[in-house]
């Protein structure tokens, strides 16, 4: 029984290695394809090192103690000593974790501040407005005056400033290989800088639960060379249909839609990032009807 116990314990780090090698080609987070994801990758790797060290230390101590001090024939009469503690030891195992935490905190803070800004200063970032709606992603390129749904093309080596907002539940914009996520919320705007090092197709998802078809709320990020990107923009501007208010309303309706491309943006008439920007009418109408009645009710219940 006791042997089994520590054998099992030592199996854990082993299986970790096994799994790591076996599945690594799928581990998107560990395959950064841009400076943002790379920063995070470095931080993750740095921390994993320390964590493995801690795990090893604890597991070794644990195993040694269990093997040596387990009750076994011949130790039946052993009476453990009374010990209250050991100040020196306790200082050691307070101090070392403090050092480790410091070693983790410094790069964390650095990286956290760094990720608020574009990864390079020399290149002007491309701005893309991202609107999350149930259950699709809408991308607007204000400078290029084009709009896409459920996919987004970006040029390589150019920082992209995603301005995130939502028409509905809080969503989270996540492209694991390009960098960590950020929430897109109704009536406000958050900013996320991402950048791709090399052309390719990267999976993007909504990471924050938004109800029925949340699972399918995926998009593709296509990183292209600058030339390809510019070519694509021109093509869209010339060939894609115009987005009308009516069409836009149908896109916003809850449900799944395929990919779409338009040669103008909905920002012309509405920016959901503004507080109280949308279906104001509807909400107001609703509260208009019930206002007085339930207002009075309220008084009864809370007093």
């Amino acid at each position, binding site marked *: 029984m006791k042997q089994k116990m520590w054998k099992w314990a030592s199996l854990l780090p082993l299986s970790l290695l096994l799994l790591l090698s076996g599945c690594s080609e799928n581990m998107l987070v560990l395959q950064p394809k841009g400076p943002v994801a790379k920063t995070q990758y470095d931080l993750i790797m740095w921390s994993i090192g320390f964590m493995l060290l801690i795990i090893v230390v604890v597991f070794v101590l644990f195993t040694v103690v269990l093997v040596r001090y387990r009750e076994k024939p011949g130790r039946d009469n052993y009476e453990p000593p009374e010990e209250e503690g050991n100040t020196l030891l306790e200082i050691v195992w307070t101090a070392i974790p403090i050092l480790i935490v410091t070693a983790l905190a410094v790069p964390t803070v650095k990286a956290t501040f760094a990720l608020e800004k574009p990864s390079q200063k020399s290149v002007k970032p491309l701005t893309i407005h991202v609107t999350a709606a149930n259950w699709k992603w809408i991308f607007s390129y204000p400078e290029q005056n084009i709009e896409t749904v459920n996919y987004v093309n970006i040029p390589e080596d150019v920082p992209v400033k995603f301005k995130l907002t939502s028409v509905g539940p809080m969503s989270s914009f996540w492209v694991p290989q390009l960098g960590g996520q950020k929430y897109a919320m109704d009536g406000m705007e958050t900013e996320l800088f991402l950048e791709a090092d090399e052309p390719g197709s990267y999976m993007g998802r909504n990471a924050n639960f938004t109800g029925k078809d949340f699972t399918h709320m995926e998009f593709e990020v296509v990183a292209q060379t600058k030339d390809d990107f510019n070519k694509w923009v021109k093509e869209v501007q010339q060939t894609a249909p115009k987005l009308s208010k009516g069409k836009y309303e149908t896109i916003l309706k809850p449900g799944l839609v395929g990919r779409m491309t338009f040669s103008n943006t909905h920002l012309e008439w509405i920016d959901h990032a503004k*507080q*109280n920007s949308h279906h104001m009418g509807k909400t*107001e109408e609703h*509260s208009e009807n*019930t*206002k*007085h009645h*339930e*207002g009075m009710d*309220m*008084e009864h219940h*809370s*007093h």
Partner: protein
Amino acid sequence: MADTAHHYDETMPLEYRTEESRLNILGFWIFLGAEVALFATLFATYLVLFQRTGHGPTTADLFEIKDVMIETLLLLTSSFTCGLAVFEMRRRRLTGLLVWLLVTLLLGAGFITFEVREFIHYVHEGATIQTSAFLSSFFVLVGTHGAHVSLGIGWMTLIIIQLLQRGFTPRTARKVFIVSLYWHFLDVVWIFIFTLVYLTGMVM
């Protein structure tokens, strides 16, 4: 801890005479600690939301200092008279205790009357709890305080009845003391409402 020496200590005020009373009073203090956390959350909500007025009125549109001052003075005074009630109780004067409790009750009722009038006034100006985030948080914060005061009035009434029935006993004394703690506490909460809701709302 069972320090039996204190059990029948005659120098101790009546409300501390029994073990049970001492436990209840301490428990009530702890409960007040929880109430602080509760009101703090309501204040946090209010302070985050009070400038988010949507299309509704703002603090400056709504608040009037005169009403607020009347409410404040009523409640401050009631806290004082409630203190006097306990003072009289500790001198074993039942009549004094009852009189001051009654005065406290009346002042509290006056406060509630003014508050309800204030609320009705707002509602008639179209500022209801559904109008905006600001108003929702305003009504809920101030309303929760008002609900507490109303509860206190009901509770104090019950205690007055018990005092009339049973006179001074360790149990009634303890109840008076606890309700007085509650009442003073509500005064403290009001001071923060006065400061953080009304004064702040009028200067910002």
